[in-house]
């Protein structure tokens, strides 16, 4: 299997702080890979480097063996890397289907002159965009809600819509930043199945950041653990679960397994909220 995305000794500095420190990461094609680590470990920063929002000071990022570091965000998106955000960032004043249509932007060509003259290309693309939007809405189980403003949708629907918008560009790599954050156990379960479907049905490589260890352990082919910007472990879920360094060095000495710690924490947080 060839590598979909590969980072080679990527470092990102903010002033004196090393947010990401010489991280090597290889995600094979069609894999679901997770990045975990405590808050402030540099997970989102690494995401931002891959998606082109940050330019890493050192190292190389290869997407299907082509270097992409330093490229503008829109160009990276155009190559087939789409992402979602930790705190949902939809275009709230647009309808759901319009969000998806914006997501399809890189796929189409029609410019302003086409729009003014309503050329054949413009009309065909518009029709195709709407049809594809409808298909994606159905795929994320939002059919019938397409003409609602995105900000009026319920939380879970917004998460799914954000993924639909990311899928609209027909990406080869999907970066999901905490896709189950703020969800209850049932919703989390549903989202997990949904993510697996993405890979199985659409064949997209998925790289995700997640705090819910049930999700991470259940879904990942490969897990990378970051702490203070440095990679401290990598491997299959089983290896990580029993990796003494991961458990002790940064989860604290008094827990026996990763799952237990995060499960209790999330449950407590969820109970406190409701």
């Amino acid at each position, binding site marked *: 299997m060839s590598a979909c995305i590969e980072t080679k000794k990527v470092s990102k500095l903010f002033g004196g702080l090393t947010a990401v420190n010489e991280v090597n990461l290889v995600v094979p094609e069609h894999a679901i890979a997770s990045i975990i680590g405590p808050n402030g470990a540099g997970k989102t920063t690494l995401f931002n480097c891959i998606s082109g929002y940050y330019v890493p000071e050192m190292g190389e990022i290869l997407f299907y063996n082509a270097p992409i570091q330093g490229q503008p965000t829109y160009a990276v998106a155009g190559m087939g890397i789409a992402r979602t955000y930790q705190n949902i960032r939809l275009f709230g004043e647009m309808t759901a289907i319009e969000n998806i249509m*914006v997501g399809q932007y*890189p796929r189409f060509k029609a*410019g302003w002159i086409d729009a003014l003259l309503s050329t054949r290309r413009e009309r065909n693309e518009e*029709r195709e965009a*709407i*049809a594809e939007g409808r298909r994606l809405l159905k795929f994320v189980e939002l059919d019938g809600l397409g003409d609602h403003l995105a900000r009026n949708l319920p939380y879970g629907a917004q998460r799914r819509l954000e993924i639909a918008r990311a899928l609209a560009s027909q990406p080869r790599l999907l970066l999901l930043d905490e896709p189950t954050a703020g969800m209850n156990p049932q919703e989390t379960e549903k989202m997990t199945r949904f993510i697996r479907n993405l890979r199985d049905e659409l064949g997209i490589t998925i790289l995700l950041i997640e705090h819910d260890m049930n999700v991470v352990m259940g879904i990942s082919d490969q897990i990378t653990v970051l702490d203070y910007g440095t990679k401290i472990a990598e491997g299959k879920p089983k290896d990580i679960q029993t990796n003494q360094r991961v458990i002790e060095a940064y989860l604290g000495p008094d827990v026996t397994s990763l799952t237990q710690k995060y499960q209790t924490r999330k449950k407590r947080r969820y109970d406190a909220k409701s």
Partner: protein
Amino acid sequence: MRTSAINNGLRSGVIFGVIIAAMFLIGFTVTGAGLIGKIFGVSSSYSAPAPAFFAIFIILISAWAGASAAPRPIAEADTLRQALSGGLIAGVVSGLFAAVLGLIFGGLLANQIDPRAYLPAVSPDSIKMFLLNQSSLMGSVLLFALIAASVSASAGLAFFLRNSGWVENKSKQTFNALSGILPAERAASLSRNPYARYAFWALSAAALIILPRAWGGYWNYVLGTVGIYIILGLGLNIITGWAGQLVIGYVAFFAIGAYTFALLTAPEPHHLMWNFWIALALGTLTAGIAGLLIGLPILNLRGDYLAIVTLGFAEIIRILLKSDLLTEFTTGPRGIRDIAGPTLFGQSFVSDVDFMYLIIIAVFIVTFAAYRLQNSRTGKAWFAINLDETVARATGINAFVSKLLALTLSAAIAGLAGALYASRNQFTGPDDHVLMVSVNVLCLVIVGGIGNIPGIFLGAFALKGLPEVLRETENYRLLIFGALLVVMMRLRPEGFLPARRPALENRDAPSPSGKEA
């Protein structure tokens, strides 16, 4: 509770009293009375209007004050007595304000002191009118009685109307009556019947062809100006309303269009005398290129740099046009005269009616273009940048190029408007291109409904057409703009006609999609 009625009355009284005093001090009492006089067909452009009109003006405003002083019928404890006492308190308080004001200024007048030295709007005539042409004591007492009586009477009336449910019934009836011809229903029936749509368009076209001939030069002038501001509003809306980049010095592109057109067609500085249409196109193009050049260095920055840069640019353009430096080239502060009117097949048509047609066509073309752009791929990209530029970039939109395109198109449209404006007036000078033009356009876009095309039409008519018709209020335009903007931000931050998103999910969803192509 009684205390609430008293408090309510006191508050309304103070507010109303301050409003009367402020209106008097800025001279709006004269304007208001003049407007009332105009309704009765009495023109009073040279002297202060008759006190009777002023009395009517005061009574009208009192009615509003009384209505707000009367308590809303929420609790059953509200009685007529309470409403009347609230109204009476409001009337007495505000009447006292007016009476004291009358006494002070009446006294000044009696002692031959001209308050105009400090308050330019308060003329002796306006004081006399304020005192209803009586002595200062008598006038103040009369004014007090008038205000107190009309406020409390209208408070009682308002209470009675509200309590009897008359207002509700009436508004419901009106709503029912109106909903018969409301756009939603009409649009629904129109979409069912294509012939109705053709008839509607034919009727509108006929009206637009006949009206400019029928309503005379004055209306052609006023509505021509409105039309040019509609074009400007639609242009500014692209960059500010859709792409969300604030442009304050929009007049710069208007000026560039106007001067390009003027220099190419006028006999005075260069004697080029080019063809109208070529000059019009070049004016549009030059302004667009100016927008492009302004945008190049700054549009990859985020935030309001564009606002600041265009603000400076507009002032630079205006001062350059006025300066001695370019007198040779642009005739300096004198402006350019005898700018060409439109020609067609060698025949010139420069009458106001012809020009009105031209403006109508231009408005139609720009509106059409705006509609086409609005929901296109490009338009969606602009709106995405407006809402969240970071995410828009991450979805593959080249924000810099998109914004640059928006600014260029905006600027080009301003250039078109400028060229039309210069050609219609057959004159353009630096004073046509003051910053106030930008502020006007920005205001009409915001007030009408930012990002919404019908809203811009409404805004242009309300902010450019109404003040032209109500010439008396000219001096207060800025004041009213300011107040209007504050009120709008408070009550309807999205404008009178907020933009709506189109319903797309089910567009050409079923089988006909294949056939339509």
